Structures are given as C-alpha cells and as structure tokens.
C-alpha cells in the first residue's frame, strides 16, 4: 500500500477556484446553463456557511433561508423605500443576519439546548420569518414578492459578470473558511465537534466559539442571501423557504462531506447534476428527491470527499 499523500488546503482552494472559473467556457455561451451554474455557486456559498455552523460546531440551524432572506429583505426594502444604493444596504442586511444568527446561537448555548432543540427553535424561527414576510405586506408585498431587477448593482445584472462576481464572493468565503480553520478558532471547533464537554473541560470557551461560528456563518448567509436577491431578479417568501434553501443546503453538505473544505463544491456540483437529471420528471421530482435524501442519508452519509479520500488514498482538505 502506498503512503497516504495529502493535498494542502491552499492548493485545493486554488485548483477549485480555477476550475470553477473555467466552467463558463465549457458551457459554450448558453445563458440557461450559465444561470444554473451561477445558482450552483450561490448554493455552494450557502453550504460553506452551513458547514461552519453545523459541521464544525454542531448547531443545527434550520433557518438558513430565514437568515439569508432577512438580509435580502432588509437590503431590498431599504434600497427601494429610501432610494439608497444597494452597496450601502447590503452591509446592513449582513449585519442583521449576523446579529440574528449570533443571538439565536447565544441563547441556545446558554440554555444548553441539544442539537435537536436548536433545530426546532430555528425551524420555528424560520416559520416566524415566513409569516412576518407574508404579513408585512406594505413593505414586502407579501406572497407576490418584490422585483429587484431595477435596483440591482450593475455587476449582478449581466450573465457572465454575475458569474465571476459570485465566484469571487465564493472564493472569499473559502479563504475566510480556510483561515478560520487554521486559526485558534479552528482548533477549538475541532474540539467542540469531537466532544463538547471535553472541550469545555480543556478550557475552551465553548459558548464564545459557538457564537463566533454562528455569527460568521450567518454573516456569510446574509451576504449570499442579498446577492441571491439581486441576481435572482425578484424575492418572495418562496425563494427563502425551508424547502428552497435549507433542505438543499443540508443535502449538499451531506453529499459533499461535512467539515471539509471542498465538500461544499463537490456536493454542489453533484446536487446540481442530480437536480437537472430529475427536472424532466416534472411533478415526480419531489418524490425522487425524497427517495434520494433517504438513500443518501442511509448509504452515503460521510460524503463524496470521504469516499474519494478512501479510494484515492489521498488526504483531501
């Protein structure tokens, strides 16, 4: 047996970014496929955020859509009502998402809630968010949603520029993730994911690190949520519903592999391919989707990164 080789995080990062940068060339100028690829990038970035929150600190946030949507709605509504530049309102949205995520995390850690209870609290939070958006009709236009095309930043209006702008954001997210995991916090996350009690006993401030992870992750969710809003052209409660964001991200992370750097990318690619294969089935796709979740969770729980590592005998980041 050959010795286990390993690929460093930095080279994997560069390789992944370069590969993704070449994707539009392979698509041969098809606007339809470019849009699918761009949405895949958005979901990869969501997954990176979820990986920090859930993968590394075991906080089951089922309010990804709600956090992303809170940021998006804040940014869009402020831009519309006060005629501000979206560049000014996006940071506001990001701060709102980060504060919400941090607060949820702080309260749940202080109350000592287990994984499942964090899941339920955040699930209830996302239901509250959905209802608020539906109810505050004057601002959010309820079910119908708001058009964002007219106020979108120029860079998010065209097909190709959007792709590269969003890829740049994804790359920044990866670098941030990489640096975070190599720092003291990354070691603390590792300890917390392995055994929370042992981490606490070893003198790690579990509360602080969990809240940190939730805040960073939520800020990232907020940033992508706002970009998603402007790129997508319109926002409505459905865009940020549990089924449209949270479930997709959860499956993507499981497919790719938790606590890995390239898992979100590989998972995102796989998910997009599966989604495209299932799409022609029309109304049958919800069912196929469900079958896939069950089968994947049972048989493929450690994700494609772990599988590749084992097969190729290479340690992947």
């Amino acid at each position: 047996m050959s010795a286990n080789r390993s690929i460093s995080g930095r080279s994997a990062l560069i390789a992944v970014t370069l590969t993704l940068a070449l994707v539009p060339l392979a698509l041969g100028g098809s606007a339809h496929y470019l849009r699918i690829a761009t949405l895949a990038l958005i979901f990869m970035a969501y997954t990176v955020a979820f990986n920090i929150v859930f993968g590394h600190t075991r906080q089951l946030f089922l309010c990804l859509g709600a956090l992303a949507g809170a940021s998006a709605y804040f940014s869009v509504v402020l831009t519309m009502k006060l005629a501000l530049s979206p560049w000014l309102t996006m940071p506001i949205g990001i701060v709102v998402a980060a504060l919400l995520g941090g607060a949820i995390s702080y309260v749940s850690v202080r109350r000592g809630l287990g994984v499942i209870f964090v899941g339920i609290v955040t699930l209830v939070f996302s239901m509250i968010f959905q209802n608020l958006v539906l109810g505050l009709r004057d601002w959010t236009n309820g079910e119908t949603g708001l058009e964002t095309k007219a106020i979108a930043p120029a860079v998010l209006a065209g097909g190709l520029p959007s792709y590269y702008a969003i890829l740049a954001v994804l790359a920044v997210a990866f670098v941030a993730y990489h640096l975070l995991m190599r720092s003291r916090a990354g070691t603390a996350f590792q300890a917390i994911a392995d055994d929370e009690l042992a981490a606490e006993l070893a003198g790690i401030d579990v509360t602080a690190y969990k809240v940190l992870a939730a805040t960073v992750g939520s800020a990232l969710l907020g940033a992508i949520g706002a970009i998603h809003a402007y790129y997508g052209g319109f926002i409505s409660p459905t865009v940020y519903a549990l089924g449209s964001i949270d479930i997709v991200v959860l499956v993507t992370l499981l497919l790719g592999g938790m606590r890995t750097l390239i898992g979100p990318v590989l998972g995102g690619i796989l998910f997009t391919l599966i989604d495209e294969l299932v799409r022609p089935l029309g109304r049958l796709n919800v069912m196929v989707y469900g079958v896939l979740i069950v089968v994947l969770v049972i048989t493929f729980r450690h994700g494609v990164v772990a599988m590749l590592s084992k097969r190729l005998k290479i340690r992947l980041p």
Partner: protein
Amino acid sequence: MLAILIDGIVQGLQLSLMAVGITLIFGLGGVLNLAHGQFAVIGGIATALLMGEGLHPLLASALGVLGAGALGLAMDRTVLVPAYRYQGEERLLLGLLITLGLSFVVNGFLDVRYPTVALTLPLPTPSFTVGGITIRTASAVVALIALAAFALLFAFLKATLLGKVVRSIMQNEVGAGLCGINPGRIRTLIVTLSAMMAGLAGVVQGLFSSLGTELGNEFTSFALIVAVIGGVRSINGTLVAGVLLGIINAFASYYVGAYLTLLILLVTAAGTILVRPQGLFAFRT
C-alpha cells in the same frame, strides 16, 4: 364565548391526537418524526379512496387508520433501521433526515397519484343544541373519538404490563434492556401505534372540514409545536398543550385574525423551548 371555548377544546384534542405520536416516537425511539403529518394524510386519503370504492365510512375509516399504521410499521422496519444502530444525537439526526426524506416521498407520491382526492365525512345531523348552545355534531364526535383514544392510550400505559415496559424504555433504554426487554420490538409497536393515532387525527379532520393531500407539512409543524410545548417526552403534557393551544388558537383567530394567531403560537413555541426546554407541563410520562 362558550361556543369558541368548545371549538378550541375540540380542535386542541385533535392537535393532541396528532402530536402524541411525535411525543411517543421521540420518547421511545429517540427519533423526531418529521413525516408525522404525512401519516395523518395517508390515513385520511386512504379512507377517502376506500369510500370511493363504495365501502361504509366507518369501515373505510378503520382501514384508513390501519393503513397509516402499516406505513408506520414499514418505516420502522426499513428506513429507520440504520438510524436505530446509533445512539443519542447521531440517531436523532439520522432519524430526522430520513423522516424528512420520507415526508418528501409521501408528499410527492400523493401529489402525482391523487392530486384531487380529498376526504370529507358529512354527518347526518350537522348540529344540535344543549342548554342553549349550538354544538356541531362533528365537534362532539371528534371530542369523543379523541378522548376515547387518549383513555385507551393511558389505560394501556398505566394498567398493562406492556405499558409498563413501554414506560420503562422511555425512562432508560439501556436499563430496560438489562431487565430482559427487547426495545426494538416495543419500538416497532409504538411507532405503529403512533402512526395509527396520526391516521385517526387525519380521518377526524375529514369530519371538521376536508382533508387534502397538501396538508401534511402543516400537520407536522402543528404537531411539532404542540409536542414541544408539552415537553417532547411527556404524554400528559402533550394532551394539555394541545388543548391549551387549541383554545388559544380559537380565541385568537376570533379576536385578532389568523395571521397574528399563527405568530402567537410560534412565539409561544420558541419561548417554551428557551424558557423551559422540558416543556410547560412536564409531568411524569
């Protein structure tokens, strides 16, 4: 006033009927069943289909409830088996994801196969009057069915040896195993029973108004809220929480409208988890 109260209590009993299965499966199996509302829908739709075949409504309902139970049994013996191999949080997480996937399968299947089927069970006399208050016959029937189901459940848990076994597993699975109890078989029994109670709640929905295929997720969310407020391990708690939420729901819908009502319920649920994670009414099982 009294009419609203009665309405609330009856709705609450139906909610409890739905939620008690979540409590039981969580307490005994350590799995939070996100496909629970789908059991209710399966029970109801099966009843509607059987009635379409010309069966007597009572027989159809019984078969519908059994059908929901069969689905529960199948879930426990097939897809949940990998989850049972683990303990604690790992099992919870796997169970959560598997049942989530299952709820997609059921939703998708019903939507494709029976998109227009709905269950309505009209009663011969729509309402009757007692002491000056007009009561819908449906409400009375639903209340009776729910109370009977709960009475049977409590009798089973408190008065039979098997019930004692169930309670012992809820208290400590390993300890029960050491006493020679096979937790797996009891779990299968309880999951089936819980699915049947959900199916009954679904059939009962057909008495109130109508049950369509799209209601599964809504049922699951409401049942989850009730189970959480009652304390996800306490059956009395679930019963009390369901009735209380039903009453709040009825009064709030009457005075402030459906939109704020749902928000009030959701905030209550979130508040309960944060203030008293063991549930508002966490008495012993």
